[in-house]
């Protein structure tokens, strides 16, 4: 049986990766991710985890090492943030194109300049078109659960794509939370041993990563797109299995007090917990406000999202990253596209909040809901606002 522990979330993340019996860990430090790989190095050093710990000289090499190891048939893990992600991005595209089930935790952090180590979603958003599956955690328990789920999905022969588990830097990585940690048997029941379908093996030689001429490149990308779309039902299935075994349920799009709500807040990541408090408060005041949380960022669950948004009169989309000059954050851009595709047109207001670790408070969410409601009532043009800017 697993146990309930009070633990720093990063340590818990490392513990569960260890329970997944990873074979190769590539590690390069960057705040606020560092505690994850530090603890893994301790697990290896103390003999609790039988894995190769490769302390590489950069994130670029971390992902390259994972690619080589995964191609050779190993279960692999790495973790990064921000600038580290930016440096490894080149290889992230290749990892997904080679269909390698690498799992990476990204402790979300703002990108330079100005240099800032605190939390926002710039790295997650930069990664959105790399062909990785991306899930997002809201609290420490979810980090643990999503990491376990990540290996299960990545290695499913119907998927074979790398998975990124996003967790907010500091607000999650450095928090001590009560966490239910599964034991080895439970993990093994959920996650079967990794059996690669193909691998670098002199007894059965294969060429990995050949040149793709114009006559094959498009087809290769289409196949990848199909793999990504095909991953959605497998992700859901793996969550259903998870619920059966562990009792905690996850969905691509999750809702909180959305029944009859006219105004819906849409959030990603740990601010969702603050947003829930705000919704409780507003509901208590008789305001018809609910919350939608996006759990799965890639593949983008457009249909599921539209399904929950379509009954609302207005949606306040809260982005935590910039998409310069588009007057819409990356999340809102996709939400609008999904609504348009499905012929649904609520009033959509976009807020950019919590950049570079700026607090997003209950009051902020109240303000966003009120402003959206007001804009809807007055018929103001749909818009975009970077909130709480000090002029």
């Amino acid at each position: 049986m697993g146990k309930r522990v009070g633990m720093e979330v990063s340590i818990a993340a490392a513990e569960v990766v260890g329970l997944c019996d990873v074979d190769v860990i590539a590690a390069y430090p960057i705040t606020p991710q560092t505690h994850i790989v530090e603890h893994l190095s301790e697990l290896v050093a103390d003999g609790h985890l039988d894995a190769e710990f490769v302390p590489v000289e950069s994130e670029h090499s971390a992902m390259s090492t994972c690619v080589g190891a995964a191609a050779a048939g190993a279960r692999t893990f790495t973790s990064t943030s921000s600038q580290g992600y930016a440096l490894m991005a080149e290889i992230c595209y290749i990892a997904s194109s080679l269909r390698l089930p690498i799992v990476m935790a990204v402790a979300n952090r703002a990108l330079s300049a100005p240099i800032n180590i605190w939390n926002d979603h710039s790295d997650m958003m930069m990664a959105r078109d790399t062909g990785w599956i991306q899930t997002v955690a809201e609290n420490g328990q979810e980090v643990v659960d999503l990491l376990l789920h990540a290996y299960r999905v990545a290695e499913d022969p119907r998927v074979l794509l790398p998975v990124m588990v996003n967790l907010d830097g500091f607000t999650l990585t450095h928090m001590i939370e009560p966490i239910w940690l599964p034991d080895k048997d439970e993990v093994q029941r959920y996650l079967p041993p990794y059996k690669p379908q193909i691998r670098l093996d002199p007894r059965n030689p294969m060429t990995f990563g050949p040149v793709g001429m114009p006559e094959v490149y498009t087809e290769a990308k289409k196949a990848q797109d199909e793999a990504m779309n095909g991953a959605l039902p497998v992700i859901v299935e793996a969550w259903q299995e998870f619920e059966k075994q562990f009792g905690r349920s996850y969905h691509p799009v999750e809702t909180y007090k959305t029944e009859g709500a006219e105004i819906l807040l849409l959030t990603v990541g740990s601010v969702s917990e603050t947003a829930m408090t705000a919704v409780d408060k507003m509901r208590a005041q008789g305001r018809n406000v609910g919350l939608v949380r996006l759990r799965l960022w890639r593949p983008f669950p457009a249909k599921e999202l539209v399904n929950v948004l379509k009954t609302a009169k207005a949606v306040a989309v809260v982005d935590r990253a910039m998409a310069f000059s588009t007057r819409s954050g990356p999340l809102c851009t996709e939400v609008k596209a999904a609504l348009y595709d499905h012929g649904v047109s609520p009033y959509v207001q976009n807020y950019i909040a919590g950049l570079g670790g700026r607090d997003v408070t209950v009051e902020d969410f109240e303000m966003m809901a009120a402003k959206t409601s007001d804009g809807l009532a007055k018929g103001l043009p749909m818009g975009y606002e970077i909130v709480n800017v000090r002029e």
Partner: protein
Amino acid sequence: MGIAAEALKDFKGFNPKKLPEVEPLSPGHRACQGCGEILALRQVLKALGENVIVASATGCMEIVTSPFPQTAWRVPWIHVAFENAAAVISGVESAYKALNRKGRINQPDVVFLAYGGDGGTADIGLQALSGALERGHNFIYVCLDNEAYMNTGIQRSSSTPYGAMTTTSPPGKKSIGQRTWKKNVAYIAAAHGIPYVATASPAFALDLMNKVKKAAMIPGPAYLHIYSPCPTGWRHETDLAIEVARLAVQSKVFPLYEVIDGKWILSRKIAKPKPVSEYFKVQRRFRHLTEKDIEEIQRRVDEEYEELLRRCAMSGEPEKKEAEEAKED
């Protein structure tokens, strides 16, 4: 006895009369006619045999051997990117270590090879290479040095020799061509204190193959710097790659040596060196150089060779004589 010397106790060289017949890198690739780089790579693979996994950097040797759906590789081969062959092979080697130890596979004898051009080695890939050497992975890294970025159209690298013409170091009124002296990556590799470093040339095939075999026998990282003429970029005749490679050695421009457990050993002493000008003459990339330029280059080539001799003398290893070695080639 050092790690390498210990591993090489029972070393037997290849027999000049009977070379291995395996061709892990098969014919049917798309390298230019007369390419010295593909020839060197073929010799490397012949020496390694078929129980090998290869990681390739982006560059000529990647492009010409792997256009989908054709592959020239009869052994497992992976290409990921330009600058990371050493990091990729680190992962492959680590995976094999872990999987063997955990009893999930039983393949303890696989050899791991990463190779790249001089651009992928001396410039953009130097960091990943240094990292992998320093971490002590058990692999062989081969730099196929054709002295420029050939795959993208003959641009200079830090391994381009002083005075050479490339498309980004063109000679002109205010330029001699390449303005800097060739970066010595073999020395840099040796400075990592790894058990085995060697230089080799496809013109001395047996020497090259024996060095590759040694590199495979020695645990830990090994670095081989292989001189690889490129008729397309060096502007020499397509039937001259071997000739040019031989002249480079005979003129002391590219001396052959090994560094075993930190001991420097000359592979062949050049008793009667040919002038650098003779080596230059067969290639059009040096055509613009004046006699004075060549004199200056000759002076520096001589100096560097003397310096190498001093390193070898300090290591106290007996030099092999050119005459003795000549037999095997």
